[in-house]
């Protein structure tokens, strides 16, 4: 098993005819993902790498039975695209787009409330169940099928972590990049819950960063509900306070956003903390030996 995506995933690419959309469509297909449909308004009837393009998500779902969507639509139209996917009944929507206005995301979350849909992102690298399915922009070849679940707020730091794991021969069940925005569809706790329930996943790597209290919430959940090994790293311990560091989410507000507080909360919850970002893999390897 794995979480969220696997061989049964039938992927729709929203914004498939754009540069990033078509590039990553090809990469996902190469990795083995069943990309069944693309969607770009006005491009209905075209094909991209053999994938049929539709004008609306509704028609794409009706014609192809797509059950997951990945969004490469520019920021001004991305919120509309998320809602379109949810409206069409797609249960898993992964939004890669960075820079969606916060007010638009507030509308999105209000719209999604009560609907049977999980949003991953926005401003995220997507997710991958190695050897089965890739719905994201990560380089597939650095991954290896196995039983460590990875969840992270950061894209490239996740790649770094995964490369370390794979280099040490440790495979992954699923790697989920939840995104760097302040208003996220899926948070650490949501993914921890899925990993805890997934039999294949034996240990969990959680990559947090400064800002917000999501890691503290994760710590509480780990304490209460997770009986699997959790290894963690929090980026930004050396960042000066009060400055925005790229991710909109990474602003230290009050005391709660500091790296040290997060590390202490996770450590108290039983998570093992990697000493530095270059030794996350090594820490996992050592921990797994216990």
């Amino acid at each position, binding site marked *: 098993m794995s979480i969220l995506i696997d061989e049964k995933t039938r992927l729709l690419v929203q914004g498939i005819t754009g540069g990033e959309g078509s590039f990553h469509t090809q990469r996902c297909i190469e990795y083995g993902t069943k990309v069944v449909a693309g969607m770009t308004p006005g491009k209905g009837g075209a094909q991209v790498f053999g994938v049929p393009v539709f004008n609306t998500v509704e028609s794409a779902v009706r014609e192809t039975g797509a059950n997951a969507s990945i969004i490469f639509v520019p920021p001004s139209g991305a919120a509309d695209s998320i809602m379109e996917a949810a409206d069409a009944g797609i249960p898993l929507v992964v939004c890669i787009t960075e820079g969606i206005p916060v007010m638009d995301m507030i509308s999105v979350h209000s719209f999604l409330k009560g609907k049977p849909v999980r949003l991953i992102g926005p401003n995220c*690298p997507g997710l991958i169940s190695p050897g089965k399915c890739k719905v994201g922009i990560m380089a597939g070849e650095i991954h290896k099928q196995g039983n460590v679940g990875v969840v992270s707020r950061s894209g490239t730091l996740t790649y770094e972590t995964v490369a370390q794991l794979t280099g040490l021969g440790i495979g992954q069940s699923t790697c989920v990049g939840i995104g760097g925005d302040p208003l996220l569809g899926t948070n650490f706790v949501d993914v921890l819950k899925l990993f805890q329930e997934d039999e294949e996943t034996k240990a969990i790597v959680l990559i947090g960063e400064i800002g917000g209290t999501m890691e503290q919430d994760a710590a509480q959940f780990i304490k209460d509900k997770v009986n699997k090994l959790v290894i963690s790293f929090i980026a930004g311990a*050396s960042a000066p306070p009060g400055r925005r560091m*790229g991710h909109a989410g990474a602003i230290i507000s009050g005391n709660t956003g500091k790296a040290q507080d997060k590390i202490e909360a996770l450590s108290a919850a039983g998570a093992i903390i990697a000493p530095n970002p270059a030794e996350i893999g090594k820490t996992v390897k050592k921990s797994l030996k216990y």
Partner: protein
Amino acid sequence: MKIHEYQAKALLSQYGIPVPSGDVAGTPAEAKKIAAGLQGKVAVKAQVYAGGRGKAGGIKLAANADEAEKSASGIIGARLVTHQTSARGAPVSHVLVEKVVEVRRELYLSIVIDNARKMPVMIASEAGGMDIEEVTLTSPEKILKAYIDPSAGWQDFEGRKLAYGMNLSAQQVKPAVKLMANLYKLFHEKDCSLAEINPLVITGDDSIMALDAKLNFDDSALFRHEDIRRLHDPAQDDPFEARANEMGIKNYIKLSGNIGCMVNGAGLAMAVLDLINYCGGNAANFLDIGTVNNTSAVISAFKVFTADPDVKAILVNIFGGMARADTIARGIIEAYQQIDIKVPVVVRLAGTNVAEGKRLLAESGINYIEAADFLDAARKAVDASKGGRN
């Protein structure tokens, strides 16, 4: 994005929120003229983005137009150092000259986004005029919150809850509720990330007024607010950051160390700072190059590094995803061709198209230091920054 107080007040005014009479002046003579028009006592307020102006001498009271001119001439053209600025301080090119109003009560009002609840929240307090974070710690019971449910938008009952909660008198409640509705309208229509009135005052004649105001805007939404974007004053930015910005590097923050860092992804960029720190070095900057589709951003980043006298070594750490390692490699090679790079450059490439990127660098003949992995990259950069090479 931040704007000046006088610009924020103009926006408040446009949304029907009362502010003191006054105008902005770029010269002492203008300040004198405005003060003369206002009659009576005025405040001369330095226009800088940083807070803490009062204690830093950025706000002067003047009894008449001549005094206002004198105060303005002491402020305009100088640099104001507050606890929120660097030691160099912020340049002051304008002052806001405002009529002094009689203040009976000082309140606090703001709107921000609550990320956990995913909706805007209006925060009000009786304890206005002071640092609200201080109030949160010392008198949390004085902090009132009203969430604005996007499914129905602003509702007056929320305003009444806050107004009565601040112990406003019966006749003050209606204008306060109206003011709150207007502030939310502004926040919502202009895509603010913060709208803060501190203090919101009850004046001698029992009316309600925004005595100071701060508006920040969601950078991601500026594409639909050209009017707001134009308000930005680049003179208030850090000069290095402003230069980086001009060159298209959005996520650059100047730090106090000596290793110029170019990384893709904010999390990895933070991790690089952490790792440099762990290896005993210090970064000269945070720089998330983001998703680069052409070489120009890479070249710009190198220009930013070489213009910074603090930079003694450069560390490029790219894990390709959306960004592709070969594009980065081409950018580095072009940068070497275009710029005289005098400091050692450590390069670590991984991820999407990494093989092609490494091949390009290797065949280019440029004088760079290749790193085997993440830790190796940080160690080599720290070594280099300490004169270990060159």
